[in-house]
């Protein structure tokens, strides 16, 4: 052992010769500065395009965004459509997931067939079919026993309880929500199944040992814990659904934002600015949804020590680390 390793520098100067508080030169990250320069250049180019290119017609974009048919389409077709379709999708998806995990082979197989069918059909095609379903029942859709019409002709008693105008029923928002919801349920079923399977089997056993029945333990114990796994992908699904409401044109449904903006574009021959208007609206609504999703995740993450707040702080620390190379 040489002398130099034994004598410890004492920069804090409290004089007792023992090492004090660490005040070291941080590691430099030249790569980060290069990346920042490249990104800054790209941002400047985009800003240049947006500001100097007159084809954007920002005044027109702003006006198109707040036209009352557009707002109406945003509220009804886009937002309400998303909410209702996701409601149908999540509720039905959880039921399908429970069916998939059931001991009953009939339930299991039915759920599988459902998922197989609806995952195979593109949503635009499905919505077009929904809109055209009225074609199957030109005389109205009868609600009653299967083969009620044939029974009526053969024996006399009529088992049809009500008749609905099928064309009216399936065109419009109802048909759109049903179509998107049924399709979504097929995807939500897989998400919910993964969530349920992620819950430790001991949880179910503990519930059973307390005398809780299957339904109660699923509702009170398993599903709330599964939500922690289910919520993040469901948030993604909701955002995807928001965008898929633009497919409601397949029904066709007129009270939808993108349809209305395009209509304005074709009337005024200002096709590009209305697309920009649509992009801005989608950006705004998606941002709100992302905030809601973060809140939900925090709610269902309680008791698991996962703290989104800490994660935000982490991001900030990393940003600071950019300059100082601080702890990561």
């Amino acid at each position, binding site marked *: 052992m040489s002398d130099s390793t034994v004598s410890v520098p004492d920069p804090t100067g409290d004089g007792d010769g023992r090492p004090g508080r660490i005040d070291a030169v941080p590691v430099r990250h030249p790569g980060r500065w290069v990346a920042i320069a490249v990104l800054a250049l790209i941002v400047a180019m985009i800003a240049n395009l947006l500001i100097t290119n007159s084809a954007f017609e920002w005044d027109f974009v702003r006006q198109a965004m707040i036209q009352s048919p557009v707002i109406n389409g945003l509220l009804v077709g886009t937002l309400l459509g998303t909410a209702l379709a996701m409601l149908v999708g999540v509720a039905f998806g959880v039921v399908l997931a429970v069916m998939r995990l059931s001991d009953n082979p009939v339930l299991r197989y039915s759920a599988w067939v459902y998922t197989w069918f609806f995952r195979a059909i593109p949503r635009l095609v499905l919505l077009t079919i929904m809109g055209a379903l009225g074609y199957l029942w030109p005389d109205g859709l009868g609600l009653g026993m299967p083969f009620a019409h044939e029974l009526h002709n053969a024996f006399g008693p009529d088992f049809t309880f009500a008749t609905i105008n099928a064309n009216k029923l399936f065109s419009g928002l109802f048909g759109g929500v049903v179509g998107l919801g049924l399709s979504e349920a097929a995807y939500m079923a897989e998400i919910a199944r993964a969530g349920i399977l992620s819950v*430790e089997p*001991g*949880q179910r*056993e*503990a*519930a*059973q*040992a*307390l*005398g*809780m*029945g*299957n339904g*109660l333990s699923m509702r*009170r*114990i398993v599903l*709330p*814990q599964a939500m922690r796994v289910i919520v993040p992908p469901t948030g993604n699904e909701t955002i995807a659904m928001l965008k898929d409401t633009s497919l409601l044109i397949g029904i066709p449904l007129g009270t939808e934002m993108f349809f209305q903006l395009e209509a304005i574009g074709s009337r005024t021959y200002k096709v590009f600015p209305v697309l920009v208007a649509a992009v801005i609206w989608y950006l705004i609504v998606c941002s709100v949804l992302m905030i809601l999703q973060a809140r939900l995740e925090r709610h*269902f993450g*309680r*008791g*698991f*020590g996962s703290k989104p707040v800490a994660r935000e702080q982490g991001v900030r620390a990393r940003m600071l680390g950019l300059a100082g190379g601080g702890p990561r």
Partner: protein
Amino acid sequence: MSDVPLVHAVNVTKAFHGNEVLKGIDLDVEAGQVVCLLGPSGSGKTTFLRCINQLEDIDGGRIWVDGELAGYEDRNGRLHRLPDKRIAQQRREIGMVFQRFNLFPHMTAIENVMEAPVRVKGKSKGEARKRGLELLNRVGLGDRCDHYPAQLSGGQQQRVAIARALAMDPKLMLFDEPTSALDPELVGEVLKVMRGLADTGMTMIVVTHEMGFAREVADMVVFMDGGVVVEQGAPRDVINNPQHERTRSFLARIREESAEEAAALAEKMAAEQI
């Protein structure tokens, strides 16, 4: 029915995928008794415990709890499987404490304890909360009632789990290696609570490796190996003076392990003091 044992198991058999785990277990537990099930891992003691509250279905034999046949109804000499609802009812009479606690992580300690009385028994929340606080106080955790399980130590979690089981006012408590997943220094607090529970006259069946507990608290110890009961009797007879070779070798091994564990614990505590 006071002359009928609280748990009356006759010739219980159980196989997993053709592997016979229980090969005809007979056991009677009187009300108020504390019975410890001992034996090497794989001897079937945990499986047998789980059969008593029907977390496992038995293949053969019968188990009666408080005079009621578990899982089946005898109608004119033919057994009929009970519907899930009736099985859930039978389980309400039996509290269970698991090796890995199995507290509900999305609920605080008091919510864990209140859950079953409110949802299963239909008690009011106020009433369940009052009784829940009483029970948490009894296991020494009255000040931790608003903590989530993740914020509690293993020993504290297990004590909450005991309070949760007691909240259903069970006639019988089953303990499945309640201290095996705990750090050695946390074992004592859980055993103390169990000892206190035994003193109140609770009927308990405990699968454990804690020989000290078995010797001091149990009215009867049952030594199982290879799916059969090798010997059973008063703890001083079975533990201090085992009749069978298998019991003797098991006890010798346990003694070695606990000696090692004690040494490790002493070392750890000494290290912490420095």
